[in-house]
């Protein structure tokens, strides 16, 4: 927040103070208040999950077309609870919202499929696999549908793969798909077939898979290898290394 905005908050008690975000927007349009007031009013929302629901905030979130998958999953969780609401209007709203999110994904997938038909670019298949994987994640509770989406994502990845190489992003996606399927051993053999020596990102991926397979000794060894390989590590990996290895050696 800059000085000007701070100044506004110090002096805003003089004159008209709209109560709702909509009123603040109207007042801003008519040069009665500065834009900061509207921003302040609009973002001073309660938690989206809290009841009674703030439908204005939910609507605004729903209107954003490029929400990331974590937020989408969170919203879906709220809508799935809302669908079971005793109030039929709220239940209907929940169902409509789920429909909006799903049809947004479907439209994107259809667009990518058409693009694939026209251009035949293999990278589009990776994009399609990613979208299907995300659809599987938001269909968490419907197991059969989830499996179908995961399967489709897997086939697109398999189809797009030329030779034995996969970009890290796509390899990570493949591993994620296998882990979601609970094919932990297949995930392990997939990553072990790749030359991962001295590559921190790949080693970390391997550690993830070994952890899922409950091979904790292996996880420890891999993390030690990551520590020694000297790559620049991000903070999250550093924290995990510190947690597992610390400064002391293990008492074998």
């Amino acid at each position: 927040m800059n000085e000007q905005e701070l100044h506004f908050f110090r002096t805003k008690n003089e004159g008209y103070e709209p109560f709702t975000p909509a009123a603040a927007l109207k007042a801003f349009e008519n040069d009665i208040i500065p834009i900061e007031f509207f921003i302040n009013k609009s973002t001073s929302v309660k938690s989206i999950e809290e009841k009674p629901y703030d439908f204005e905030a939910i609507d605004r979130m729903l209107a954003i077309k490029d929400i990331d998958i974590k937020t989408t999953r969170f919203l879906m969780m709220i809508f799935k609870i809302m669908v079971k609401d005793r109030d039929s209007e709220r239940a209907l709203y929940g169902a409509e919202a789920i429909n909006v999110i799903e049809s947004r994904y479907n439209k994107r997938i259809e667009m990518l499929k058409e693009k694939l038909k026209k251009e035949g670019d293999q990278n589009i298949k990776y994009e399609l696999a990613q979208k299907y994987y995300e659809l599987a994640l938001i269909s968490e509770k419907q197991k059969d549908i989830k499996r179908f989406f995961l399967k489709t994502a897997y086939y697109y990845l398999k189809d797009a793969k030329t030779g034995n190489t996969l970009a890290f992003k796509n390899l990570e996606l493949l591993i994620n798909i296998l882990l979601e399927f609970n094919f932990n051993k297949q995930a392990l053999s997939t990553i072990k077939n790749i030359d991962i020596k001295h590559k921190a990102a790949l080693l970390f991926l391997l550690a993830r898979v070994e952890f899922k397979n409950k091979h904790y000794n292996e996880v420890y060894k891999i993390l030690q290898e990551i520590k020694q390989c000297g790559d620049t590590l991000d903070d999250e990996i550093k924290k995990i290394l510190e947690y597992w290895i610390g400064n002391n050696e293990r008492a074998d």
Partner: protein
Amino acid sequence: MKQQRPAVILAELSAVLVVLGIANFFLTINDPGYFSLPFNPYFIFALFATLLYGKYYGLFSLLVSIILIVIPTPAYKYFFESYHITFSYWIKLGQKAVTPFSLTLVGIFVFGLIRDSLKLDLDKTKYILNTITKEKAILDNEVKALKKVNRELEMRVYTQEDSTVMLYSKIQELYSHNFQKGLDLLLNIAQTYTGATVCSIWEYNQELKRLELRMNFGWDMDMDRITRIPVEDSIEGWVLRNNMMFSVRMVMQYENLARMDKGRNILTVPIAVGHKVWGVFNIEDIPFEKYNLYTEKYLLMIMALVAPALDKAFEYEAFSIQENVNVVTGFPPFSHFYIILEQELSRVKFEKGRLSVMIVELVNYGDLLHELSKDGVFALFLLISERIKELSDNKAMFFHYKNDNQISYILPNLDYDGCSLFCLNILEMINKRDWELNKKTVLPEIVLGYTSLTDDKQSAEDLLAIAENLLEMQKV
């Protein structure tokens, strides 16, 4: 475009006319006003000025032109050539000028009207454009603000799932004095804030020295799961006995834990209720990135935060059950029956076991009430229940049902056929025996409603609806 000031325009117009006048003076001194030419530069200029600046500027040009025509030439002639100027000079000049002057006046008026109308249109368009530009500027600002707001909102929603504000409001919900709901919330909070994909809550059964599954998240119904864990030789038991947290890293450090490890535990913490360890919370699966010191600390913090609320709910529930236990029969009320039935169902489903529910209704309750009083009827219920307990090999759990003339049983390890047979045995036993109470013979008339857990009937509500339905059918 910058608008010219009227004084400048007037000066410019005057300057051009003066030039025209000078040219007129030097080129055709005997024809002031260019009246011998087929067109008149002065008047054409006036029309031009009208088109360019409007009718008033046209009239001004015309006026200046007249002054330039009428004054300089005769003045020169009078002063420098001693020419005697009479009034007839101007009359003659007037006669020459009258037609072009009148045409120019009409022209100025007409062109002025056209120009005014065009200017009006132009002004209108300008006004519209101005309004659009202003609105666009406001809209641009709004879009900027909305983008900021959306970004902020998205970030807020993104972080909301595991925000401290959310944790606070969920902890507040725990103070509902409902222990079952409290545990449910604890499972939800712990799952949300640690990112656990599979987790469960286990209750310690002091009598049987084992931990029993109370609830879970993420268990796959297709997989075989154990729902009872011995306190000895298990990680859960170790956590319970030592009131300490278990983290899977410890398996690599301590041999005893490695021996006990069955691959079920990643993070296991004790749940304290009152001053005792009530049970354990176990995380069975968690994303690798989430398994860190932060999650460990967070889990311990959550347990510390929920403990007072759980403690209160447990105390309240224990008190409420104790208060509502029937003094004659010693059976808990219907509300407790429902909770126990739900717990048993969730456990039996994962064990892929069997469970039946039975409701016994005393049809001649009114007569017996008149004969024995309410406590007497309850004593009769106790008597019947003791016999039923014997028949079930002490496995049946007894509760009061919705009405005073009804009691209900939970019968573990009994399927539908077994339950039907058991009901026949009960009816036979009741009809064969002589029932005596306070040295009085009584004749209890009972009807039975029962049902068993099947693939399509999984909830407590479903089971009770079927049993009640069967009961009603017998009464018709």
